[in-house]
C-alpha cells in the first residue's frame, strides 16, 4: 500500500512541476471575478443597459463583424439578398441550443428580431429566416451584428435565454452577475467555470480589489488608464470608441444661437479635456465616427480657441443662459461639464450646470455601435435623436457628406473618443479584445503562477 502511494505521489509531482508548460497551455475551471464601473439595471441587450462586453457572453447574434468590420457567420451560416438588398435570407446554424435547453429554430430567431426591429418583416422559412425591410438595406448583415439584434428567448417569468458560451446563474440588478459556463455551447465549452461581476466599483475600489486579489479583472475608466499603467499593472486598452459629445435638445432657434453653438463647438478645449481630465485616455475628435473606423475623421478640425470664436463673443451676448445636463454619478463628467462651462464663459455664453430635468444641452457618452462606418453613424444619429443620415452610395465621400451634414445641423458637438480598458491580474491568461472592444471571455483561462 505504502509503495503504491509513493509511486502515485512521485507521478503527480512530475506532472505538476514544469511551471512554464502549465502556464502556456489553457486550463479549464476557475472563477473569473470582474470589478465593473457599470451599474446596469437589466441584461437585455435590446435595452442597451449593459455593456456588450458582458451581454455578448450570454447572447449571440446571427452575424458578427471581423476586425475590418466585415460580417462573418455566427448563428447564421450564410445569407443572401434579393430585390436589391431589400429582402434577405439567413440560413440558421443547426444544433445550437439555447440556455433553457431548447433548440434554436427559425421561430425563436423571428420573434427575437421582430421584437428588436418593429419596422422589419421577419419570416421563418424552415431553417432559414427571411427579413424584408422597407427600403434597400445593403448593410443589413452588419446591422444584425448589433447587440440589440441578439437572439433571445424571453420566458414568461422574465428570464432571458441566449446561445452564448455563458449562461446567467445569478443576477442582482446594478450589483452582481454570476455567469456559468455553457457546457453545451455549439462552439465548445469555455475554459472558465464561472464569471462573477461586481458592478458599481469606483477607481479606488477596483485597485483595492485587484491588489487584494479579490478581483482578477477591473474595468478601468479612461482617466484611470495612465495611473494604472504607471503603477505597473497589466492594462489592455481598446481603440478610441466611446463618444463623448454635447447634444442639443432642439435645433438652433436663431442665427445667433446657431453661431453660438458653432463658436462653442470650436472653442471647447477638447484636447485639454482629453489630456487632463481623461489623462490621455482617448483622442480629441470633432467627428462622430472615430477616425480609425471612418478613415476621414481627422478632416473635422478639433482645434480650439480660434480668433473667429472670440470674435463671435459679441454676437452671443444676446443669448439667454443655457443649461448643461450631465450625469451626476460620474465625477469625471462633472469636471468635463465644468470645463465646458469655463470655455463657454470665455466666449460670452452663460451655462448653468444641472443634473436633472430638461436642459438646453446635455453631455452624453455613447459606445461605438458598429465597426461599419455607415451603420455606426446611423446608430449614433438614432441614439442621439438626430436626423437619420442619408446615403446615396456606400462610398467614403458619401459617408463624409452625411456626417458633415449632421455636424452642421448644430445639434451635436463631438468632443473626445475614449478608450475602454481593463486591468488584469497575472492569473488571467489569453485575454483578447476584439477590434470593436468586445471581450472574448470564452478563450480566457486562469492559472496562478507559484511564487
Amino acid at each position, binding site marked *: 500500500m505504502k509503495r503504491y502511494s509513493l509511486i502515485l505521489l512521485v507521478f503527480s509531482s512530475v506532472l505538476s512541476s514544469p511551471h512554464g508548460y502549465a502556464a502556456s497551455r489553457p486550463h479549464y475551471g476557475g472563477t473569473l471575478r470582474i470589478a465593473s464601473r457599470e451599474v446596469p439595471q437589466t441584461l437585455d441587450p435590446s435595452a442597451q443597459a449593459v455593456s456588450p462586453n458582458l451581454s455578448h457572453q450570454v447572447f449571440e447574434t446571427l452575424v458578427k463583424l471581423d476586425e475590418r468590420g466585415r460580417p462573418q457567420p455566427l448563428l447564421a451560416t450564410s445569407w443572401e439578398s434579393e430585390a436589391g438588398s431589400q429582402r434577405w435570407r439567413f440560413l440558421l446554424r443547426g444544433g445550437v441550443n439555447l440556455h433553457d435547453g431548447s433548440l434554436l429554430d427559425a421561430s425563436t430567431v423571428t420573434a427575437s428580431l421582430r421584437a428588436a426591429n418593429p419596422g422589419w418583416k421577419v419570416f421563418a422559412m424552415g431553417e432559414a429566416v427571411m427579413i424584408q425591410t422597407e427600403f434597400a438595406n445593403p448593410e443589413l448583415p452588419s446591422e444584425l451584428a448589433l447587440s440589440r439584434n441578439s437572439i433571445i428567448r424571453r420566458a414568461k417569468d422574465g428570464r432571458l435565454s441566449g446561445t452564448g458560451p455563458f449562461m446567467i446563474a445569478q443576477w442582482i440588478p446594478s450589483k452582481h452577475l454570476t455567469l456559468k459556463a455553457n457546457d453545451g455551447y455549439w462552439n465548445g465549452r469555455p475554459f472558465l467555470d464561472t464569471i462573477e461581476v461586481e458592478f458599481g466599483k469606483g477607481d479606488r475600489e477596483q485597485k483595492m480589489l485587484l491588489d487584494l486579489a479579490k478581483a482578477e479583472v477591473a474595468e478601468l475608466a479612461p482617466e484611470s488608464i*495612465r495611473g494604472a499603467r504607471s503603477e505597473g499593472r497589466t492594462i489592455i486598452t481598446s481603440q478610441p470608441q466611446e463618444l463623448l459629445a454635447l447634444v442639443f435638445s432642439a435645433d438652433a432657434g436663431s442665427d445667433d444661437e446657431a453661431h453660438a453653438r458653432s463658436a462653442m463647438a470650436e472653442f471647447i*478645449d477638447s484636447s*485639454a479635456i482629453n*489630456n*487632463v*481630465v481623461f*489623462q*490621455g485616455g482617448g483622442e480629441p475628435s470633432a467627428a462622430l465616427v472615430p477616425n480609425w473606423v471612418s478613415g476621414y475623421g481627422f478632416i473635422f478640425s478639433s482645434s480650439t480657441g480660434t480668433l473667429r470664436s472670440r470674435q463671435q463673443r459679441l454676437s452671443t451676448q444676446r443669448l439667454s443662459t443655457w443649461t448643461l445636463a450631465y450625469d451626476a454619478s460620474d465625477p469625471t463628467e462633472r*469636471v*468635463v*461639464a*465644468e*470645463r465646458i*462651462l*469655463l470655455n463657454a464663459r470665455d466666449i460670452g455664453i452663460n451655462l448653468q*450646470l444641472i443634473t436633472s430635468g430638461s436642459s438646453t444641452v446635455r453631455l452624453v457618452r455613447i459606445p461605438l455601435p458598429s465597426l461599419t462606418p455607415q451603420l455606426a453613424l446611423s446608430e449614433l444619429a438614432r441614439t442621439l435623436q438626430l436626423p437619420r443620415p442619408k446615403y446615396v452610395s456606400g462610398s467614403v465621400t458619401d459617408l463624409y457628406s452625411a456626417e458633415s451634414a449632421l455636424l452642421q445641423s448644430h445639434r451635436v458637438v463631438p468632443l473626445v473618443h475614449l478608450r475602454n480598458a481593463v486591468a488584469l491580474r497575472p492569473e488571467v491568461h489569453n485575454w483578447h479584445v476584439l477590434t470593436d472592444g468586445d471581450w472574448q471571455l470564452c478563450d480566457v483561462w486562469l492559472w496562478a503562477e507559484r511564487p
Partner: protein
Amino acid sequence: MSFRRRLLLLFSFTVFVSVAVVTWIVSDMTRHAFDRANDQRTAALVAQFHREFARRGEEVSAKIQAVASTPQAMRMLVAASRPAPDYSTFLDDAQVIAEAQHLDFLEFADDRGVIISSAQWPAKFGYKEPLASSNTPSYPFLKVEETPGGAALGLLAVRTTDRKIFVIGGIRLDKTFLSSLELPSGMRAMLYENLDGGMGTFSSDRLITTGDHLENPQQLAGVIQSVQRTAIDSATAIHWNSGDDETVNASPLTGENHQVLGILLVASSRRAYSDLRTQIRSAALLSASAGLLLAVILSSWVAARITRPVEELARGAHELAAGNWQTQVIVRSNDEIGELAESFNRMTRDLLNQRERLVQAERVAAWRELARRLAHELKNPLFPLQLTVENLLRAREQGKAQFDETFRESAGTLLSEIQNLKTIIARFSDFSKMPQPHFQPVELEQVVEEALKLHQAQLAKAKIEVRRDSSPVSVPPPLPLNESQRPILIAADPDLLHRALSNLIVNAIDAMPEGGALTLRTHQETDSARIQVSDTGQGLSTAECGRLFTPYYTSKPHGTGLGLAIVQSIVSDHGGRISVSSQPGQGTTFIIELPANRDKLSTAQRTHV
C-alpha cells in the same frame, strides 16, 4: 358742567397724566439701559468675530504653509521647472490635499499664474490665477472666490515655493464659520455675501444664517444696502412676522481693495425688552385703572364735602329769588362753606326784617298820605261851610229879611259843599270798595270808541286831536294797527274798562292844557290784547313814573291821586298789567296789556247768550 363732574375730570386727568409720565420715564430709562447693554453685547460679538477671523486666518496661513511643503507641491515644483511642463497628472491633487487639510479652497499655480490644480474648480486647470504673483499680501485676506456653483466668500492666504509654485487656499465664510462663534443667549450672527460688490442690491440667497430659515429676509435689505453704500456700520430694529423684535447691527467686511465683500449681521433679540415693556405697560394700566377708581371715589367724597353745601346754597338762592323769603340752608361745617351758609341765612333774615320794616314804613307813609289827602280834601269844603255858618250867624243879627236872603244863599252853599264832601267820601269809598269785574265778551274797539265819545266835548274844547290809526309821536314804538279790522274780542268787564280808559283820557286832557294829540291804538296778540294811550303833553320824569300808580299820589294840583291807582287796580283785576313810558316834554304813553281770558270768554259767552 357741574362742579362735581369737573372735579372728577380733574382728578382723573391728574392721575392719568401722572401714571403716563412715570410710565414713559421708566420705559425710556429701560430702553436706554437695554440699548446700552445690547450695544455692548454686539460690540463684543463683532470683536469676537474679528478675533475668530484673525485666528482662522492664521490657521489658514499655517495650513497653506504646510501644503506648500507637501510632496505633491514638490512634484509640481519639479514639473514647473521643466521647459514644457505637463500638469495633467496633478488634476486631482488639490482636491485630495484640500480634503486632508480641511480647506474649502486650494489652488496651485506656477510662476506664470497658470493654475496647475484646483480643488474648488478642478476644471480650471490652465486658466490664470491673479493671486499667483509677488504682489499678493502675505497675511490672510477676504476674497470672493469663484466655484462652479457660483461665487463664494473666502478667507484666503497665499504662499509660494521658490517663487515657482504658488499655493492659494482658504476656507469659506459660511454657516460652519458662523457656527463656530460662541453666541450669547438671545443673539445670532448672519453673514451676507456681497459677492458682486453690489451697491444697493439685496438677494436673500446670499444671506447665510446659522439657525432657522428667516421668514422674510427682505426686511434686512435696508440695513444691508446702507452698509453697501456707505461701507460703515449700520443698525436697525426689525419686527419679524413671528412677533419677535431684533436689533440688527451690520458691519462691513472688506477685501484688499477696501471693497465691501461681506456684511456681518449681528442680531440681538429684543424679546426681553419687549417683555419688560409689556410688564411696565401692564403695571401702568393697572395703576391708571386703580388711580381712576380712586379718583372717582375721592372726587365723590370731596364733592360730597364741598359741593353739597354749595348746591344747597344755590337752591336757597333760587328759592329766595322766587320769593320765598323764609328760605334757610343747613350749616354743615365751620369752614368757609359753613360761613357762606351762615351769611346766606343772616342775609335772608335781614332781608325779611328790612322788608317788614319797609312794609310798615310804606303803610305808615300811606296812612300819612291818606290823612294828608283826606285833610286836604275835607279842608276845602269845610272852610266855606264855616264861613257860611258864620255868615248865617251874623245875618240873624241883622234882620229877618237879610237873614232869609242870607239863609237861602247859605243853605245853597251848605248843600253844595256837603255834596262835595259826599262826593269826596264816595270817591274814597269807591276806591276802597272797587268792584270785582264781571267778565263778558267785549269788543275792545267799541269800549275805546265809547270812552272817546264820552270825552269828545272836553277833547274838542281842549283842542286835542284824536288819532285812532296812526301815531306820529310814540315812545316806545307804537303798537301795530289792527290791520285786520277784525273786532278784538276779549273777556272783560266793559264798565270797568270804560272807567279805566276814561281816567287815562282825562289824565291826557289834563296833561295837554295847550292842546295836542291823543292817540289810541288797539292790537291783538296770540293770547292777549293791548291798548296804547299816548298824549303829546308835558311828560313825566322818571321819578314821577315810578310813583305814578301809588294811591293818592298826583302830579296835578287838584287831583286825588286815585285815578291811576284805580286804573291799575282794574287792569290787575283783569289779570293784565299796565306800564308807562315818558320823558319830560315828549308826552306820555300808557300801555295796557289784557289777557284774552279765553276760558272766561267761552263761559261769558254762554252766560251772555
